């Protein structure tokens, strides 16, 4: 595989005139044409749209109006509404759906001049951790095509890891940006809940969903997050907190800072070789002058069950709008209203989606609401309090992103609970609404391992800073599939 170029690198080339957006975009499209049949990372590739945008970007640079991101090719997870381009959410329900508007994230990145080459594959309605539930077929991990790239932003992760694009957007509800980033050996970031607008993101679990970035470096992530972040009046859960200059603090020293490592992370579920890679990463930080100490998250074992109550409950309600009336799949030959609903929905949704809708409906139903949903929201508070308490003693938390490296496609589909346990390290972060990043920190039997860093609310700058400094001292993030 040819050397992947980061956004920062492409930006330099564009600025100096060594490359045009047209050329970079064409390269991206060529790579997709060459590799995507095997990877299945894209649901829709939009060459015409991309080249038009590239041309405009080149013009803009010529006029001196280009910014860091202008003219750089990227892709959007197919959960972001894109006006006049199909948004399917990897579901038969929205197979032909064309949104009449752009998501805020799409608008902002387009305004910055980024060139979208297409929509990436994902788990259906973002429900999954392996990108195996897509209506359009599973995505393959570029490191080993028999392995899953993770999910739900599997397509975005694979596309970036394979060098098809330098950046792809994703969404992270329980780990769906960080986990695939870890399994594909790239950098994946989820900002604080409310930092980036959810307007135009097809809703999965509203109190957990957050737009994220998958890219090749923390620096690239900072460049993109800078543009995506900020208040949006169309989203009531959007924070009015000011967006600082993330690049200004990327290089700040972390000497004297403290990293907390939750002892509950290092249990029997974690692969020992993976644990070693994480520990080696902590040594790198020690060498920078940061202190590393143990902290405790006593309620960690309840995080996954809590997540799997709150998340399907909200999702079951969010997906009620798919009824075959105003948009989306409608069954043929229906005679009555009940059939319209039941057949359209049963045909339109895949098994995992139906299972989660059923779970969510169950935990909200009369007689069960208190024991499940209400209880889960209380435990959620406990988990969040645990994390807040840690931040009273440390500046940042660190640990593995996933318990193992990439697993085989088809390996975990039969047991939903087994699949859910993949999210053990990532879900608490969503439950508490904290910012978290996964960066490559080693290889285990030829597959990438990820280090997760988690900060307090609105500490994006700190998280990106820690991540960037690590990437200056190491080169795990530069390892590509196909090389060593």
């Amino acid at each position, binding site marked *: 595989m040819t050397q992947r170029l980061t956004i920062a690198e492409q930006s330099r080339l564009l600025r100096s005139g060594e490359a045009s957006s047209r050329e970079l975009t064409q390269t991206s499209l060529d790579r997709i044409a060459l590799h995507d049949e095997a990877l299945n990372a894209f649901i829709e590739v939009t060459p015409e749209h991309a080249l038009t945008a590239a041309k405009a970007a080149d013009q803009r640079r010529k006029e001196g109006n280009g910014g860091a991101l202008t003219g750089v090719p990227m892709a959007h997870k197919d959960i972001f509404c894109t006006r006049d381009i199909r948004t399917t959410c990897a579901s038969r329900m929205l197979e032909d*759906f*064309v949104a*009449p508007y752009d998501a805020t994230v799409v608008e902002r990145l387009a305004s910055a001049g980024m060139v979208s080459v297409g929509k990436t594959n994902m788990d259906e309605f973002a429900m999954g951790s392996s990108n195996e539930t897509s209506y359009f077929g599973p995505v393959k991990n570029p490191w080993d095509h028999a392995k899953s790239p993770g999910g739900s932003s599997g397509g975005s992760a694979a596309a970036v890891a394979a060098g098809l694009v330098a950046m792809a957007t994703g969404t992270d509800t329980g780990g769906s940006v960080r986990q695939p980033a870890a399994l594909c050996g790239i950098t994946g970031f989820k900002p*604080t*809940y*409310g930092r980036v607008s959810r307007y135009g993101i097809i809703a999965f679990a509203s*109190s957990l969903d957050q737009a994220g970035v998958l890219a090749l470096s923390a620096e690239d992530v900072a460049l993109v997050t800078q543009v995506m972040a900020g208040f949006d*009046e169309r989203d*009531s*859960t959007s*924070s*009015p907190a000011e967006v600082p200059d993330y690049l200004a603090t990327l290089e700040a020293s972390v000497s004297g800072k403290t990293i907390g490592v939750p002892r509950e992370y290092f249990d029997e579920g974690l692969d020992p070789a993976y644990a070693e890679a994480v520990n080696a990463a902590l040594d790198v930080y020690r060498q920078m002058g940061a202190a590393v100490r143990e902290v405790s998250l006593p*309620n960690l*074992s*309840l995080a996954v*069950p809590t997540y*799997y*109550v709150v998340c399907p409950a909200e999702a*079951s309600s969010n997906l*009620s709008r798919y*009824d*075959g*009336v*105003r*948009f*989306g799949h*409608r069954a043929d030959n229906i*005679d009555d*209203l009940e059939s*319209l*609903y*039941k*057949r359209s*929905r*049963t045909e339109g*949704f895949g098994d995992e989606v*139906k*299972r989660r*809708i*059923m779970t969510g*409906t*169950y*935990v909200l*139903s009369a007689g069960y609401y208190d024991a*499940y949903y209400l*209880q*889960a*929201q*209380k*435990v*959620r*508070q406990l988990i*969040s309090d645990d994390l807040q308490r840690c931040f009273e003693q440390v500046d940042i938390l660190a640990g593995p992103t996933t318990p193992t490296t990439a697993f085989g496609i088809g390996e975990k589909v039969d*047991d*939903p*609970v087994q699949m*859910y346990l993949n999210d053990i390290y990532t879900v608490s972060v969503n*439950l*508490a*609404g904290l910012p978290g990043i996964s960066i490559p920190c080693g290889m285990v039997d030829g597959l990438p391992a990820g280090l997760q860093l988690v900060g307090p609310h609105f500490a994006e700058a700190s998280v990106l800073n820690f991540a960037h400094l690590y990437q200056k001292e190491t080169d795990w993030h530069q390892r590509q599939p196909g090389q060593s």
Partner: protein
Amino acid sequence: MTLSREDIEYIAHLARLEVSKSDVPAYVDKLGRIIEFIDELGQADTADIVPMAHPLDMSQRLRPDEVTEGDDRDRFQANAPETEKGLYVVPRVVE
């Protein structure tokens, strides 16, 4: 906690999903395992805990009372499976 066939059918109906007879056992099994898994939540002592309303401590923003949307019916209805005279068409609803 085992779910019965009736439970599955009832939940499916509430969610407007069809579960064929042959699929019911699979649902009973998988959903059952999930419910068993989340039942662990019952162990947590949450006696004095206020349920989390939102991850952030924010209150609802209020927007000014202004008309900001116009008529885009044709564009929106391009996505509709069936319309007539500007209405969305569904099978007869009896009131």
